[in-house]
């Protein structure tokens, strides 16, 4: 126990000898939480649209105005034909083309139905889909507006039957995040990202640095157990991670008014279990690497996999089965889910206990491996 205390002291001294590290622990979370939540949004505004109006009638003019007035769209241009509009799309001046056929008004009045063509840049599939849905909504609104005005022109028989239509009121209610604020969803994810980067990269460089500097040889000839050595490496990152979490919790409350309904204690407990697992991963990488360069490539490789397959940016449920299997052993995924439940759903520690158990199991396996893979000979 006493050896462990001295070893931990040594680790802290080594850590703070590098002036970048204390600054990193404070400034990095602050910067990330201050700046990046504002960048995340799938809410699509300001879609630039070109309207090609072959009809040039009262109705087509009204539809154009309706599109231009919508909060989603900016009317960029009204080019004379489709090719001119397409050229604008190629030049990245417009995102969408609405083409109104020449017979638009005649069809509406005589045949009582008509159509418009919509072409959308769908390199970003989601954005393309949402954009065309918004146009469809506007067109539907416009057609019910017309229905109100033009019903009188209908033969009485038709008029009666369609006015007797039954109506199901579909009322959507968005629970846990009624304003559909993307920032609230992403901030717990950012906290996990911060922990992963700091408590993953630093330990990954730790032992390999001692190898390059040669100090590892001194440790190897000292009578300390492998277990104590690894524990002493892990514990300082708990401290780092807790400081990061306290800064993050405070800032996200002060700036975004976000407070965990499940309690701060629950958030901190889950963080501790998580830090243990990513730091364990870092130490394993450090044990197997010969140079700092190898360690840094490997740790970045794993961090990218943890993050991009961990449900922070894209949902795990829409991944193929094999990727979901990876997510099932991904600590990032468990903590992100737990944080989001604690922060947004108001879940309690008991509700996230399944995630904590999984995290604990991952931590035990990884750290067992870390102790095992540390060899006391050069």
């Amino acid at each position, binding site marked *: 126990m006493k050896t462990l205390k001295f070893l931990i002291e040594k680790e802290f001294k080594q850590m703070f000898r590098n002036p970048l590290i204390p600054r990193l622990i404070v400034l990095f979370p602050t910067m990330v939480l201050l700046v990046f939540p504002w960048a995340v949004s799938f809410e699509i505004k300001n879609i630039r649209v070109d309207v090609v109006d072959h009809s040039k009638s009262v109705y087509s003019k009204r539809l154009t105005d309706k599109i231009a007035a919508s909060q989603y769209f900016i009317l960029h241009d009204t080019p004379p034909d489709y090719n001119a509009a397409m050229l604008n799309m190629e030049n990245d001046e417009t995102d969408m083309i609405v083409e109104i056929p020449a017979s638009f008004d005649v069809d509406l009045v005589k045949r009582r139905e008509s159509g418009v063509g919509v072409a959308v840049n769908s390199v970003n599939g989601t954005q393309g889909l949402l954009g065309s849905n918004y146009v469809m909504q506007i067109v539907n609104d416009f057609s019910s507006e017309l229905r109100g005005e033009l019903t009188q022109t209908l033969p009485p028989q038709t008029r009666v039957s369609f006015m007797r239509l039954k109506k199901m009121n579909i009322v959507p209610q968005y629970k846990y995040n009624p304003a559909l604020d993307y920032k609230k969803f992403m901030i717990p994810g950012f906290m996990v990202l911060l922990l992963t980067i700091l408590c993953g990269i630093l330990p990954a460089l730790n032992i390999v640095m001692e190898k390059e500097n040669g100090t590892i040889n001194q440790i190897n000839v000292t009578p300390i157990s492998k277990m104590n050595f690894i524990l002493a490496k892990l514990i300082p990152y708990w401290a780092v991670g807790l400081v990061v979490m306290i800064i993050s919790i405070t800032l996200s409350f002060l700036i975004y008014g976000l407070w965990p309904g499940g309690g701060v204690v629950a958030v901190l407990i889950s963080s501790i279990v998580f830090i243990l697992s990513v730091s364990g991963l870092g130490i394993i990488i450090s044990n197997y690497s010969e140079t700092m360069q190898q360690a*840094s490539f490997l740790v970045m490789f794993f961090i990218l996999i943890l993050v991009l397959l961990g449900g922070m940016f894209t949902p795990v449920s829409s991944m193929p089965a094999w990727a979901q299997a990876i997510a099932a052993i991904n600590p990032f995924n468990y903590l992100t889910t737990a944080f989001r439940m604690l922060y947004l759903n108001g879940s309690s520690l008991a509700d996230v206990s399944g995630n904590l158990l999984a995290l604990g199991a991952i931590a035990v396996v990884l750290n067992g491996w870390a102790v095992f893979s540390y060899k006391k000979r050069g």
Partner: protein
Amino acid sequence: MKQFIAFVKKEFRHIIRDNRTLLIILGMPVVEILLFGFAVNMEVQNIRVAVYDPTPDAFTTGIAERIRQNSYFNYRGSVQTMDEMEESMRKGELDLAVVFQQNFQEELVHSGEADVQLLSNSSDPNRGSIAATYATAIIAGFQREQTDLIQIPFQIQTENRMIYNPLMKSSYMFVPGIMGLVLMIICTIMTSVSIVREKERGTMEVLLASPLKQGTMIFAKTIPYMVISFIDFVIILLLSYFVLDVPVNGSLLLLFFVAILYITLTLSYGLTVSTLVDKQVNAVIFSAITAMIPVLMLSGMIFPVDNMPGALQALSAIVPARWFIEAVRKVMIQGLGVTIAWKEMLVLTGMTLFLLGVTIMKTKKRLE
């Protein structure tokens, strides 16, 4: 010139000798493009849904059956009480609940109106709203079938066409982003760490004492890295084309040119980092943080730049990956030529010149 070639050879040997690192540098992009190319997508699927229906009748069971059969939904049966529903939603076991009012059909037939509520777990706003939209479409479709005999007048049909990505595959959007991210990380860490390592060990001073001009020397150091990074790019491109089915619609030559510009830029960034720090740890931390987070958040890889507030759009302009990703999307996916992608290429070149200038100035100062 002879000296220069000798120097390049020496650097190549350095790299090839360390075959473990070489394996990592060449293997990492392969694994990542395959993992992320298939797994990273925004589609909303597998929505776990339950129904609360106090008084089942022909209409409510009809709607529930439609939802059960829809492939986007994972039907979890009906719940008996609202409390039960609330609890499983709080535990994260449920994404959507369809709540019918009492005596749904009776109300609809007699008063002409009946309510159905969609409670969607919107902690993920994207998923929450899209789940509600899907359910709305199903219910509206059911309603239309009930009234299909009546012609609703003045309907305007919209005919949609998806340009550049007709199948709406997420990979078209993400693959250029993953290219930008992986190259940025590899190139920056590779150059910055290896140069700082020489500084740390003191071998840099030996090199600086050689008769070779330092500009030439740095240039010679980066050539092997350039070759390796280009091989990485070619591997990623081959995998995207043959395995992920992402098309190369534009000129391959132009695409290679864009890649070389970007690789030069990221290597130059690594050089700049190496002049700012003098410990390998700090080089790794600095490169990792500045190469990863801005690319993930501000490059348009995941979140469209156009949706960001003005200040962040301005900030994103200094992220190299943003310009690379835009250029690759234009050339590779949209099949556009140099007449349209020149702007991005100009920015990439400008950034490279700027970083090289900073590096040379910093290095000179150190020697004085």
